[in-house]
């Protein structure tokens, strides 16, 4: 069993008005040393199977559903999880 931690973000070339609002508001509150804000989405998936197959599967899931590849990029980490830990 694997736990996938998936991060989806806008590509740097795409304007993100939400991140701009957050950065501008932080600056107004005095945190004017914040140079950049990146807003994204975070997903955790538990998957069974061998690692190579699971990696390919996550790529497919991200490309078709979790990310819009026109505007977003993704990255993920995979960590082994024991079945006992999942049952808890």
């Amino acid at each position: 069993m694997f736990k996938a931690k998936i991060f989806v973000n806008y590509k740097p070339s795409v304007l993100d008005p939400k991140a701009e609002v957050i950065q501008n508001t932080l600056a107004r509150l005095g945190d004017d040393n914040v140079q950049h804000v990146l807003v994204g989405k975070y997903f955790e998936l538990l998957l069974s199977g061998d690692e190579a197959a699971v990696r390919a599967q996550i790529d497919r899931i991200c490309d078709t559903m979790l990310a819009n590849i026109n505007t977003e990029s993704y990255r993920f980490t995979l960590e082994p999880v024991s079945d006992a830990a999942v049952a808890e």
Partner: protein
Amino acid sequence: MKAAVLSFPGSNCDADMTWAIGDVAGQAVKLVSAQATSLAGFDCVVVPGGFSYGDYLRSGAIAKFAPIMPALKDFAAAGGYVLGVCNGFQILTEAGLLPGTLQWNTSLQFICQPTPLIVANARTAFSSAYSEGQQITLPIAHGEGNYYADDATLAQLEEKGQVVFRYAENPNGSRNDIAGLTNARGNVLGMMPHPERAVETLLGGTDGLGVFESLINAMKGAPADVATRTFA
């Protein structure tokens, strides 16, 4: 014309669209559930506005996997006319039937107001009832209508005349003021403004009728330049 209006969980312009095509334009129209798997017998499919699947993940991101979608893709691939309005436009881009993406309005506000548009191409199956350069007014009602495509895609859209409607006063940050566009073949149109909400003077205007009149004419095999333009 025998039109199907798709209804997803969360669609909320499906009844308006059915009324506009059926009661106002006088065409055969049927509401088709997104759970259905066939579009046999229809010559036009409309993907209406709303918040399909609650806009979970991204607008249109779940709808593109609805049971009806393989049939819609086959219908479009066979040259059938597909009109997507608002959330329907978002679904068509997510499904890959139209290029680009609709992002949050730059103001981050949901904008609901009559909006002046310029008809950028009146030689499509969806716009032949208008004249090129004509200014019309249609309501918009969206939070995510900010059209984005990369530079190469935009250049291609412009070169092939795929931009059909542009905002006269860009309300949402859309690149090249794009409010509506077709695929390269010209048989699929997506637009953020709502033509079905502008089909009676009681509603504040009738500028939306042209979209439906254009489609009806296209079905009749109308002007030759329309036919060659859309089925090249």
